[in-house]
């Protein structure tokens, strides 16, 4: 963590966060402070507890122990107002797809407290930038995966949030749209927004994150900039660091076995 940061109020502050599902701990004591303008690459193997952490912060999962403070306030205090400053793109693009893009986006905007017309205008312009002007009045059910993803991205940004939770935000997007979204994240961070970015694609995380937090078995296994992690672990790429820190070495052996089973007569 950098020195200057400690003077600024953290956007997000987690203390000793633990969570248990049916006698199995998925989070075993997480401590984390995140500051404005950071792009956090939040990585970890499947089942490491990444989405559970995010869901707790969004108030989707109850029953945790420890403290979670967003914008300086404990989220357990029963006031859901803090969500007004959050944008969220879930891993699976779950949306009410029998609605048209316009209906869905204005609905979400209104839930965030925007008024209908302003929201409509804003959403239309944002969708236009994603080349989706023509389908703005069409039902989401007819959208391709990439179009849905763009709609999700727009819905998460309509209300100008200060904190963004993005779970695989690039999935399904074509190469050009990927460029737009990456640049978008960089510019939003420069504006002082905080981005919490979860992904399994290490190359992307490596490039866009200003700070990488690696979760392994419910605990933070590494935390720092890519350069810091590289120095510490003496590995060349984030992928290598990831494999090393999660204690995963036998990928070659598994692949060999896989091939031999495939080839089996």
């Amino acid at each position, binding site marked *: 963590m950098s020195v200057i940061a400690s003077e600024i109020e953290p956007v997000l502050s987690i203390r000793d966060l633990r969570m248990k599902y049916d006698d199995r701990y998925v989070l075993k004591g997480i401590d984390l402070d995140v500051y404005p303008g950071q792009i956090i690459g939040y990585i970890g193997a499947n089942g490491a507890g990444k989405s559970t952490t995010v869901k707790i912060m*969004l108030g989707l999962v109850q029953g945790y122990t420890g403290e979670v403070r967003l914008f300086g306030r404990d989220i357990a205090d029963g006031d859901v107002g803090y969500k007004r400053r959050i944008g969220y793109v879930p891993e699976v693009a779950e*949306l*009410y797809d029998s*609605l048209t893009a*316009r209906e869905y986006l204005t609905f979400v905007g209104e839930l965030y407290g925007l008024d209908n017309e302003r929201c409509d205008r804003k959403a239309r312009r944002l969708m236009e930038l994603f080349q989706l002007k023509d389908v703005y009045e*069409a039902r989401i059910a*007819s959208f391709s995966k990439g179009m849905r993803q763009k709609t999700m991205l727009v819905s998460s940004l309509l209300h100008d949030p200060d904190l963004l939770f993005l779970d695989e935000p690039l999935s399904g997007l074509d190469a050009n749209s990927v460029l737009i979204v990456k640049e978008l994240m960089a510019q939003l961070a420069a504006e002082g927004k905080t981005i919490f970015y979860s992904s399994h694609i290490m190359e992307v995380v490596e490039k866009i994150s200003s700070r990488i937090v690696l979760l392994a078995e419910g605990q933070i296994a590494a935390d720092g900039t890519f350069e810091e992690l590289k120095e510490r672990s003496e590995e060349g790429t984030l992928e290598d660091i990831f494999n090393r820190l999660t204690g995963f070495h036998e990928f070659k052996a598994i692949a060999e076995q896989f091939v031999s089973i495939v080839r089996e007569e």
Partner: protein
Amino acid sequence: MNDFVMLKLLDRFQPLFAKLGVDYGAMRLILRMKLTMDRRRASTLFNASSGGADAEKETNHFIKSMLLYGVMGLLIMPVLLLELPPFFKMTIVFALLMFMIMMALISDFSTVLLDLRDKTVLLTKPVAPRTVAMAKLVHIVFYLLGLSGAFAAAPLVAIAIRHGLLHMALFAVELLGAVVLVLTFTALVYLTMLRLFDGEKLKDMINYAQIGFSVVMMVGYQFAIRSFEFASLAPEFEPKLWQLLVPPVWFGAPFGWLSGGVEAGGGGFVATLSAMAFVVPVLALVVYVKLMPTFENSLQKLSQAGAVRTKGKRRLGDALARALTTHGEERTFFQFATAMMGKEREFKLKSYPSVALGIVFPVIYLFIGADGFSLESLSTGRGYLAIYLAMLAIPSVVMILRYASGYKGAWIYQVTPVRDYGLAHRGTLKAFLVKMYMPCFLVVGIFMILVFGLRIVPDLAVALLASMLFTVICWLPVREVMPFSEPFQTGRGSDALMIVPLMLLLGAFAGVHYLCTFFDFGVWLYGAVLAALNVWVWRNGFGARRRGSG
């Protein structure tokens, strides 16, 4: 987006919701969205085009259901006009009404009650869980009131004419109580099940409840004709303790009281019953509101993977598949179809009731016959031919073998090098006969043997041969469509049209059998012919075919 009348009505209750700690503005917004989506529910599949063009196609599915309920209300209106104790009449009306509401709730609104998408979309926004839960409740109440209102319209008029306005007002109030009671009761049952079992189990249970209801409905329809006979028995009210456990009796009781039809002896008891009609719904509502957060949190379980099932039956299935199929591809499809018939919930919902009717029809037929109601054939000892009624299940199920809710998975047929689609069809039809038809046939067959004795075994064997032949004939109209490759759609008129001639053919099968019983060895001859036809059809009827385009 246009506004809804229902929402305008709701606006009058705004202070009430505010008092309950609900953000009315957000709730209204959510409700408006839900109502818009519901309108499109039936037609989502076809519409990829723009919103403007759709607007006209947004036929309100709900209005149709309301009409249906209204007609059913009309049908029970005569009961109310009869010279019967009001207590008894109203108990029957409420029993029907509550059954209908419960059925609508389980089949149409389980998805609303158990919606998980709400959680991701709504709870990540600055909206309190209480508001979301209340929106859900109001949403369902809208519909149930609409449906029960449609159902009760005719009875309300009948009551007003027959007994006066006071009775009518009482009925209207009790109606609300009944809706609340059914809704909260169902929600509490779901909650209990979510607590005890995993989500998949709950979905299975709802599925079976739906199947059960459909069967009850269809069977009930068969008895409906005789209900007047039953009603004219004019039962006399006798207080019994078990009546305390039957909600429709509670709702019927106040009417007994109001009419003073019950003498002082049962008076105290009737008063207790009447009190239950008002107290229990209110209590249930209070409990529900208290448990609402628990309910919402338990919903998370629905998304969790179910426990791994044991695979004890696999070996029997494998053995059957090997014994009954000749080619690799046929066997593959036999096993695949067996699995789909057992697992596809929507398919089960559509097909199992038909199979159940295949069991029920022959039995009902015999009972009605025993009352001296029906054909002469029974008295001459040929009633066992009623087993042909079991074959009614065949066309209805074979017609829907091409549907599945996961129909999109059908691309797999095209990308894999399946050489012979004919074999695929044959395997599927065999799976249908083994997995769905045989259990039905065996139950009816055993029943028939119990009634008519072992002498009918050759006849049953002939009927089975006829069933097998009939199955292939039923498949012919849909032979161009791969199994499980089309979505379920409501109101497929063409299916019904195809079934009519098949029914006539079925009659012919039974008729020939009937005639054959008048000759020595006639049945044996018939059996031999059917066997030969079967061999020919099952061998040559499935000539190698490519998937047709139409």
